[in-house]
């Protein structure tokens, strides 16, 4: 976990939504120019173009959401890559230009997006623009070379070049998507890029390899390669969809079950949800990576779950007004509950230490049953994510569901006054930035 202090760096052009606009405009310009050029030149090899167009459209219909609200269209992307990298179909040398690749890909994508529109799922223009730009990039580099006899007749050369281009396309996709994320979620670019690569790598590798395979196989199988290769990638995609589904249900379930504390009257309605949203925003601000952010979200949602083990609700919930002993006991009990699940070890640890002062506990006080954070007499700091929850929790206790910016500012001020011992100054400052941004948006 990044414990050191990060400076907040932003480029001047990083104004909200400007990135998305820039992307769409870039994709639009490339598309319009390509369509115009294709119209002038006329469509070459129309049969091949239509076959790939259908495949791309089919892939777009079957697009898929990966964890973290990432939209991908693996089959469409593989089809488009293959079309860009196509050298021969059977004995026939592929004649199409880069402009034609862009045109066919765009038409396929738009046609494939129509069924989604019909059922009320608007297309994500950002994602589609990125996919189109990546394909365009590969096409404009490779198409002029495809007719070259050196490339056409040396398997090794063609293979290396095509591999390099497929990797380039997928890298470009990750970079552009990360930039978009920086813009939308105020994440840091480096963090966003690493997260993006981590999520996209497995499926990306399959997409790239399938793109290459189909381009090669078309030489032997003709257009039948499209149908043959789609089946396995389809199976892969089904597996990924299932995976994403379970991930989503998991989060929904933790969210829902965190609400039992509210229904039982232990805490104020909406408390866990608000704390988790705030904590995740603060964590992102501090450059925490996505898998750890997810754990932070779980921990924040369940931070009061320990109250369930108390016979009677603490009046008013576990607010800052309750004694440290009681708070600590709730944290301990909550951590025990989470520990039961076995798979959420670090979440349990975050919850366990959510009440410790940010410098750590000097002396294990009475009634403290957990591991006191001491190593050789030095108090060890609670994990960053525990400190974030502590700050977010206190903030929500003071502000509640109120949207009043004045009240929020006062609460932040109060937390700041307590940074000497209780709250982590780093977390409080990040929280203050998140809260300020939020009130600016509301105004």
């Amino acid at each position: 976990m990044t414990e050191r202090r990060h400076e907040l760096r932003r480029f001047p052009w990083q104004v909200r939504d400007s990135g998305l606009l820039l992307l769409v405009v870039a994709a639009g310009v490339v598309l319009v120019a390509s369509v115009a050029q294709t119209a002038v030149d006329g469509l070459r090899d129309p049969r091949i173009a239509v076959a790939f167009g259908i495949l791309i459209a089919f892939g777009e219909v079957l697009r898929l959401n990966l964890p973290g609200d990432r939209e991908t269209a693996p089959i469409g992307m593989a089809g488009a890559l293959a079309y860009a990298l196509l050298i021969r179909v059977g004995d026939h040398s592929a004649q199409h230009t880069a402009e034609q690749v862009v045109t066919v890909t765009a038409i396929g994508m738009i046609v494939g997006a129509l069924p989604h529109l019909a059922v009320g799922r608007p297309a994500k223009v950002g994602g589609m623009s990125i996919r189109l730009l990546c394909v365009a990039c590969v096409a404009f580099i490779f198409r002029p070379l495809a007719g070259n006899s050196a490339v056409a007749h040396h398997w090794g050369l063609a293979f290396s070049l095509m591999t390099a281009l497929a990797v380039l396309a997928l890298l470009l996709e990750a970079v552009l998507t990360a930039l978009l994320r920086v813009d939308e979620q105020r994440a840091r670019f480096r963090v966003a890029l690493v997260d993006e690569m981590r999520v996209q790598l497995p499926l990306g590798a399959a997409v790239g390899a399938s793109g290459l395979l189909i381009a090669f196989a078309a030489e032997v199988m003709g257009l039948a390669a499209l149908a043959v290769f789609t089946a396995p990638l389809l199976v892969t995609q089904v597996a990924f969809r299932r995976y994403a589904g379970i991930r989503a249900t998991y989060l929904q379930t933790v969210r829902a079950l965190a609400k039992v504390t509210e229904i039982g009257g232990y805490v104020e309605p909406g408390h866990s949800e608000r704390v988790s949203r705030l904590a995740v925003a603060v964590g992102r601000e501090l450059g925490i990576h996505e898998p750890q952010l997810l754990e932070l979200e779980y921990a924040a949602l369940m931070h009061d779950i320990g109250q369930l083990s108390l016979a009677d609700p603490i009046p008013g919930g576990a607010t800052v007004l309750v004694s440290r002993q009681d708070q600590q006991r709730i944290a301990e009990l909550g951590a025990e509950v989470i520990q039961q699940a076995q798979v959420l070890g670090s979440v349990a640890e975050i919850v366990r230490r959510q009440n410790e002062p940010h410098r750590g506990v000097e002396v294990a006080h009475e009634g403290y049953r957990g591991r006191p954070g001491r190593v050789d007499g030095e108090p060890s700091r609670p994990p960053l994510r525990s400190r974030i929850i502590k700050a977010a929790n206190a903030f929500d206790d003071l502000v509640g569901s109120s949207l009043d910016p004045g009240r929020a500012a006062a609460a932040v001020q109060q937390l700041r006054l307590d940074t000497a011992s209780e709250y982590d100054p780093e977390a409080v400052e990040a929280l203050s930035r998140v809260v300020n941004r939020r009130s600016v948006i509301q105004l």
Partner: protein
Amino acid sequence: MARLSWAARLYVGVVVLAAAIVLIRGPFGDIRWWRNVAVLGLLLVVFESTATLLRPRQLAWSPNSSATLAAAVLLGPVGAALVGACTIFGLRRGPSLAQRVFNTAMMALSAYLAGRAFVALHGTVGTPDAHSFPKVIGPFVVAAVVHAVTNHVLLGGVLWLTSDRDLAGRRAPLGMSVKLIASDLGYGAFGLLIAALWSVAGVFAPVLILIPLFVARWAVTQIAEQQQAYEATVGALCQAVETKDFYTRGHSDRVSRGSVMIAREIGMRGERVEAIGYAGMLHDVGKLGVPTKVLQKTGKLTEEEYAAIQLHPMRGLDIVREIGFLDEALAGIMHHHERIDGRGYPMGLAGDEIPEFARVLAVADAFDSMTSTRSYRGARPVEEAIAELRKWSGTQFDPAFVDAFVAAIKRDGWQRPEPPLLGADDLTTIAAQDHDDPSAPLRVIDSL
């Protein structure tokens, strides 16, 4: 497979013998042919060594069929059988020697039959070229189907004969088999791709093929891991809800198990069985909304207090509504206290109006309540609880599900909870009445 019945021994013996005959008889090809057998065999060993174990039945799943089917096209039936026989070199720790030998024979036989099917339909054996397509596709698809079906039939046979009830499952596998055959066919298609690329990429073809296959495999493991993590988390959270009441600890878990037993017995689809398991787990979360003093009350309940208890299924629904479960699971949680005669709560639905899940849950719920210790009585023996279920069958419970449950219990038994040890545990409260107990209904003050 330590102790096999004679039928199973005979079966395994016949399969192994048939495979051996196929392998020994030939005909074999030239040096090149043997080299290709070696390359594809190596590919198969890689697949076999990295097989994914499927939960909950410990069957291995691997994309082996792509190697054997490629061999069927490139090398013919005997070559395919030889490649299939390389299964024996797989570096998987799980299977015993007997299992390994059987698996090998099974793979060799299915590969051989697939190869025969391919040849019988006039598929040309050898490296395909531009002119082989698309006419090779038809025979190949048939070969892939033959491969998958033979594989599953042979496997089904051994599972059925080894009387390992857990493994055989006896009814559940049908849906599972269809899914497995479908994914087998999907990966079988890679076989044709390997064969097709053989002429342009030679032995590199399998390398290219490996990447997507490993990604798929990775995804499958991820699914299994997430699923396990998810189940553990739901279980832990349900337990947290239960800690409030000393006597109902483990109740959710047992109701979940009971509902799954009924669901399996009546032959529900796998997906629905899974959903009903979660519904059982979560059916009482709404109880948290009932004030502790009501749950603890020893005397008769007032109308308001009874109303508060009657509200708990709705509260439960409020909590779980946003979870992306099957709607059926939600309906089950909401209606698990309805009665067949229409005198239940919260809606007073009767007969078939009550969702199927709710009728299943109701049986398992009441049964667990009766066989657990309560503050006002000890746990009842299973036979007595069954008699009680039968007594209320048709008025409170759906007779079909009562019968199914009784049949399942008779066969598989029922693990009753340990009687709770009352200790100096200050965290728990003791409920004086149990709303789930049909033999001791809640006492409500009659309104005047």
